[in-house]
């Protein structure tokens, strides 16, 4: 996978396929980016398992917080990493060693570890690095255009609406 230029089909395929997301570094502070992303993913119908040792046992946005990947109730479809690049590489190796493999490992904006990505892809895991799932979902659904952001997509098809007035969805993630 070219880690500098993911195709829209690759990203939307991931966002359509994934149902459960483990978010490492989820913050309880409501102005932190990880809190924004957690709230947005919940609003789009994803099940999100926040991981934050400092908040373990508490709830963020009504979701039980776990101390580590080992404590999750199951294997998540996707692990979303809000940590620095070095820590993200260690997390990938920890996941590979555990044998409990997610379909996707996603590293947030500015987070990238190319060597770890090669190892994860060799194990059949799809990788996304230096991207934000909220921005990508908003971009591919067209919602981000409401903020004047260049979605870099063109379409002559009607956007897919989800339930609620100001909510759009991806093609395979229709109104619930």
């Amino acid at each position, binding site marked *: 996978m070219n880690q500098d230029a993911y*195709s*829209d*089909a690759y990203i939307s395929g991931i966002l359509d396929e994934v149902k459960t997301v483990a978010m490492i570094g989820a913050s309880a502070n*409501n*102005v932190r*980016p990880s*809190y*924004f992303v957690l*709230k*947005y993913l919940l*609003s789009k119908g994803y099940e999100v398992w926040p991981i934050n040792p400092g908040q373990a046992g508490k709830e963020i946005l009504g979701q039980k917080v776990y101390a580590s990947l080992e404590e999750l109730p199951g294997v998540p479809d996707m692990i979303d990493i809000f940590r620095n690049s070095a820590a993200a590489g260690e997390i990938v190796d920890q996941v590979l060693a555990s044998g409990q493999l997610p379909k996707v490992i996603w590293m947030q*904006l500015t987070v990238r570890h190319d060597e770890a990505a090669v190892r994860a892809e060799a194990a059949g895991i799809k990788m996304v690095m230096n991207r*934000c799932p909220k*921005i990508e979902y*908003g971009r591919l659904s*067209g*919602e*981000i*255009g*409401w*903020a*004047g*952001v*260049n*979605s*870099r*997509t*063109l*379409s*002559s*098809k*009607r*956007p*897919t*609406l989800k339930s*609620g*007035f*100001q*909510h*759009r969805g991806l093609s395979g993630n229709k109104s619930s």
Partner: protein
Amino acid sequence: MSENIPGFSTLAIHAGAAPDPSTGARATPIYQTTSFVFDDVDHAASLFGLQAFGNIYTRITNPTTAVLEERVAALEGGTAALATASGHSAQLLCFHTLMQPGDNIVAANKLYGGSINQLNHSFKSFGWGVKWADPADISSFEAAIDDKTRAIFIESLANPGGIVVDIEAIAALAKAKGVPLVVDNTMATPYLCRPIEHGADIVLHSLTKFMGGHGNSMGGIIVDGGSFDWSASGNYPLLSEPRPEYQGIVLHETFGNFAFAIACRVLGLRDLGPAISPFNAFMILTGIETLPLRMQRHSDNAKKVALHLSGHDKVKWVSYAALPEDKHHSLQQKYMPKGAGAVFTFGVEGGYDTGVALVSKVELFSHLANIGDTRSLIIHPASTTHRQLTDEQKTAAGAGPDVVRISVGLEDVDDIIADLDQALSG
């Protein structure tokens, strides 16, 4: 579609404008509403806290205006854009986001006269300084930059003299000094020149001119190039520091490479208020669909008119970068090879009186203070826009008594030339 990068004409028609999700309307609907309902209290809180994408109030976002914003961002190759009520208000919001009292910008001294007024006078009352530099002498920019400088500001194609600025040379200086380069691209439009590809960090427009193109709607826009690191220096606290307006959000950290456009919207437009009307956004959007066709015809017509005038016995000189002998011709060939735009100046034999006679006798040209209309426009600055200045000041401003400015329209070029000929005769 996105795997292949669409061409400019395709973007001019389609970027930002999928069919309306509610009705399937193919043209972009005019959402002429002040406000938008919330799904519930939590949705409202998410919108006000910038946690969800969506519309609250047309002073902040509007779905019609958003199509215009995405369209221009795509045409300029930017990450995002913010439309405003006018080009002047785009400059106000841009510099409000960049500057604190006591800061300054270094600006080219060849700018639209309205911009010179705004920078020289109105901005002073905000405590924002301006230091002038000569775009023909890059070292004058370097000499003017100090530790309070927060941006360099130039026009790609300067109004009205037909001056093409060496964007890459100034961009290299801006990068070395750690300040963003802001380029007003009104006269060239992204069809002729895309400043972000040459190193600009922010692009501004008066959409009132060639982008709308029909002389019917005011508008402006700020395009975020997505290239500047707002957190590197600490000099841009609206982007790099926790914002009390939003409970401590750090905008650059939260919005990454489109944080500047978001900051101009949620801090500048929200609080200062110069929102464009959705109707004007619709009119300008419709104009942009034919931008490539219009700008090519404007430039082709202007070149023919300039060539004709350079051989006219009542014309002393013509300043138009598309003419091979023009001093800006090599820069024009580099930065805007498809054409040099519609606007240029020329000098008439007989000075002030001939200039006044010319604007009085034209029958096809309209005598008014605008550029970028389908119609051909003419003005004699010495008797109108620059009337209050002394002769010395007029000449220094490029508005000497013999100077006439025209904005060549889309009429048949033979009719345009015939009108100038009859008005110059006798």
